[in-house]
């Protein structure tokens, strides 16, 4: 079928027509080969304008369309719809920006006209090389794998599960509940943690659509958004369990920093120097006591343990330290508590109040260079106060508020799933602002303190957020519609050098070992075109921004 290009120039009222001599443009491009019709219209984006275009396409049996009007950001979509309605493939169309980037920025009318001609010619040359692109639809599995059985994973599972959606919850240890099960209460509301967690675990266990694997670890994650293949290995079992899911939620939580790495605090050396988790457990057991069974009369809480080593603030230590003050004064009314801190971090609306209500029961010592020694059976805290003056304090017990750090096996998991680790070794979210729970691997989400230190409340919100993303994109019965302007690698040209694999930011290119060539997963390619520019043999191309298409524009530009 012969090519019939229709070229239409929008007057955009006076905006283009006053700056560009449209008739000159029409004359200049009419003679170009394959151009079937050239015409002008007062406002093509208006409903009349769209109708006019549609009729023109049908009347002249056009195969391609060029519209010289405004920025693609304004109306590319509009005219692509016109194409669809008129029955030509929307990608056999090119919009020319002769308003924002011609009429509006050019003083002299002749110059603006000359530029409009150049831009329109370039588009005509380009559109000749356009190929029709078809929307694809991909069947997707709507089940979800949740990794980690702490509050983050549990909340995500409960939000996600439905009659039509199975959730597989994989927990490394022998029981679910996570860190929270060690806490008596949560700040700032000081409600019993059990109230929060037990009832959730209940409904989790009662739901036959949630399959819980304890003592298990994820061994393999293959495939892509909507179609992941999972292998889970259960301890003491030979064969891994295999199943398919559409999305993966990573909720593996965090560890606390090991105070042995900060010897100045004497942790592991002195009996009554304990870390925050040990204290939570002790408190939960109902009795706060020293190694010798005696009740401590004085307790020091040291903030920011490991902050200098980790090089970030763990956000919640100040608050849980204040919670410890409540624990202590509750169980030991006459106890003397001192907090050694440098900066109080109480972000958000309700933490300061908690602080105000607690500070009466404790001293706050802004201090530096804290060091702990043992002196006749008691612990002696040497420190510099904020004026730099040396001072010390003798106490029965010291609690170290340790930093939050990624779990030791984080990098192993990152490897298996193909996630990247960002600052502090925490899993990297896709975008610091707009993509807080998604990752650069589509369909893989990260929530809770495996992404960044955070409170229980923030963690649950993230779990709900991940649920929001998944529920809105993986709907039973609905197919996924991937981007169509994606990259493609020619089998016959690819030499298998893997350059494209190394430059792709989204890991959508894989290597076919039999054929020794790279293959793009078009279902998840974002279409940046990095691989196309990186490939020295020209095997990789990016649809709708091919070498030929750009070359044609270029040649008109340098003519």
């Amino acid at each position: 079928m012969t090519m019939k290009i229709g070229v239409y120039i929008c007057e955009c009222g006076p905006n283009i027509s006053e700056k560009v001599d449209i008739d000159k443009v029409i004359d200049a491009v009419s003679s170009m080969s394959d151009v079937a019709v050239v015409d002008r219209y007062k406002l093509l984006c208006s409903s009349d304008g769209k109708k006019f275009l549609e009729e023109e396409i049908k009347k002249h049996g056009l195969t391609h369309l060029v519209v010289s009007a405004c920025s693609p950001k304004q109306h590319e979509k509009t005219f692509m719809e016109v194409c669809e309605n008129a029955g030509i493939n929307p990608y056999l169309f090119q919009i020319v920006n002769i308003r924002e980037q011609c009429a509006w920025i050019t003083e002299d009318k002749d110059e603006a006209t000359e530029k409009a001609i150049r831009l329109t010619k370039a588009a005509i040359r380009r559109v000749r090389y356009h190929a029709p692109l078809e929307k694809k639809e991909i069947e997707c599995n709507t089940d979800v794998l949740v990794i980690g059985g702490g509050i983050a994973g549990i909340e995500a599972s409960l939000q996600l599960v439905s009659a039509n959606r199975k959730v597989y919850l994989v927990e490394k240890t022998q029981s679910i509940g996570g860190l929270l099960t060690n806490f008596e209460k949560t700040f700032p509301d000081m409600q019993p943690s059990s109230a929060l967690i037990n009832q959730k675990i209940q409904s989790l266990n009662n739901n036959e659509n949630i399959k819980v694997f304890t003592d298990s670890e994820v061994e393999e994650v293959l495939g892509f958004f909507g179609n992941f293949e999972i292998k889970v290995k259960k301890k003491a079992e030979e064969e891994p369990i295999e199943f398919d899911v559409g999305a993966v939620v990573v909720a593996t939580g965090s560890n606390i920093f090991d105070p042995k790495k900060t010897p100045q605090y004497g942790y592991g050396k002195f009996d009554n120097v304990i870390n925050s988790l040990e204290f939570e457990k002790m408190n939960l057991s109902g009795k706060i006591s020293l190694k010798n069974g005696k009740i401590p009369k004085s307790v020091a809480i040291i903030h920011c343990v490991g902050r200098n080593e980790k090089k970030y603030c763990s956000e919640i230590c100040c608050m849980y330290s204040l919670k410890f003050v409540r624990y202590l004064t509750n169980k030991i009314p006459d106890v003397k508590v001192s907090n050694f801190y440098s900066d109080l971090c109480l972000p958000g609306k309700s933490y300061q109040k908690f602080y105000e209500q607690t500070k009466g029961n404790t001293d706050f010592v802004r201090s530096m260079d804290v060091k702990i020694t043992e002196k006749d059976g008691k612990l002696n805290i040497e420190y510099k106060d904020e004026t730099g003056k040396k001072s010390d304090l003798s106490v029965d017990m010291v609690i170290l508020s340790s930093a939050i750090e990624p779990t030791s096996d984080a990098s192993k998991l990152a490897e298996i799933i193909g996630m990247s680790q960002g600052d502090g070794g925490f899993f990297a979210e896709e975008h610091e602002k707009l993509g807080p729970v998604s990752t650069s691997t589509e369909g893989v989400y990260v929530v809770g303190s495996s992404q960044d230190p955070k409170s229980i409340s923030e963690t649950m919100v993230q779990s709900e957020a991940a649920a929001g993303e998944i529920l809105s994109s993986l709907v039973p019965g609905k197919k996924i519609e991937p981007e169509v302007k994606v990259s493609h690698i020619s089998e016959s040209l690819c030499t298998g050098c893997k350059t494209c694999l190394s430059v792709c930011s989204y890991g959508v290119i894989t290597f076919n070992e039999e054929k020794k060539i790279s293959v793009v997963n078009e279902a998840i390619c974002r279409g940046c075109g990095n691989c196309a520019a990186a490939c020295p043999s020209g095997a990789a191309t990016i649809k709708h921004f091919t070498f030929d298409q750009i070359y044609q524009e270029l040649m008109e530009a340098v003519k």
Partner: protein
Amino acid sequence: MGEKKQHTDVLVIGAGIAGIEASLLLSKSGRRVHLVEKTSYTGGSVIKFEEVFSNMECSTCMVSPVQQELLQDKNINLLMLAEVEEVKGSLGNFTVKIRKKARYVDLQNCIGCNACFDPCPVSLKNEFEEGLSERKAIYVPCAGALPNVPMIDTEHCLHFKGKSCNACQEACAFEAIDFKQKDESIELGVEAIIVATGYDIFDSKKTPKYGYGKIDDVYTAMEFERLYASNGPTEGQIFLKNGKTPKSAAIIHCVGRDEKGYCSAVCCLYSLKFNHYLKSKIPEIKISEFYTDLCIPGKSHQKFYEKMKETGTQMIRANVVEVTKSGKEITVNYKDENGKKSNLLVDMVILAPAIEPKSDASELAKILGVSLDEYGFFKGENQDVFSVVTSKPGIFAAGCCQGPKNIQNSVSQANAAVGKILSATKTKMEGDITA
């Protein structure tokens, strides 16, 4: 399903970053969304920032793609210059009355050529630019605003003050300007409501000791954001009222913290960002930050702080800070950590005021029938400080209307609210689709 009429549309109040993200996600799931925005533009306060901490990403580059997506989304019914007047009913079938003010400029016909601005004889302070530049009675808040369609400020427009001025109408080639447009009252049935109305900035005049409003060259954070903005009143050039370039600046943290009784979570970080702003335009400038406790939680922010410190900024832990002016000179008087009185001469002072609830938050809460907390933010379910669930089933709160927070947490909450809505009805909805 049959028994009681169930709506599936969702109402989102506020087209800031939280409202936009929530709407787009809901639309992606196939829901129809009614997005009600009080102003004439989308993007809320994020579009006032040139860059955002801690990666210093260009804010416009970050947000304008989602704004474009929003404007082109056929599932989203964007109602600008609109406010919720009345809400009846409960989860699943709320009836909402919305009052939509006339824009007097037709969104379809207007092509954003701005030809109507020049002929307008009225000139006013531009609120969006914190009064640092002028606008006309027909105007868009700033270049690049989306939608790029002006509105008419009927309070000042001569035409609406009975004069015979039609200047803008005559200048418009698209019959886009329609003085006959009427305010509308719209009634909607929705399943659920997401409140994302954002925040106000604490009025620094309430803390006279910092001299704001009395002393020239004492700026609030928002004013300074606009000063630095490349699409702002000075195209990003930072200079003093007298046109000179400042050689030194003081940034004062925690303005209004004592008054509000909470920490606003983002001030330390955006104050550090201001370092970057100042240094990138005036490399030799001397900067001093006055703070009490540095609040930079999370994995990325300390790194950012260290980077800012490298630029030679002086971090002064101080209390009883006061700003005075004698002759030409601005003095910051303070007590340092040893309790010693000290002072510092600077050319410019930037205040980092607290984040506070929108002035009309309580009104909206009344209309919605949900409770606010003691500070006037929307209250989370029981004591849960971060929860998006309000006291009324089917109504959720996301972003800074729920409490001061950074963009990341606002977006998390927006998505969480969507998660809650979809989760509550997923079996039914999905049942419908699969059936």
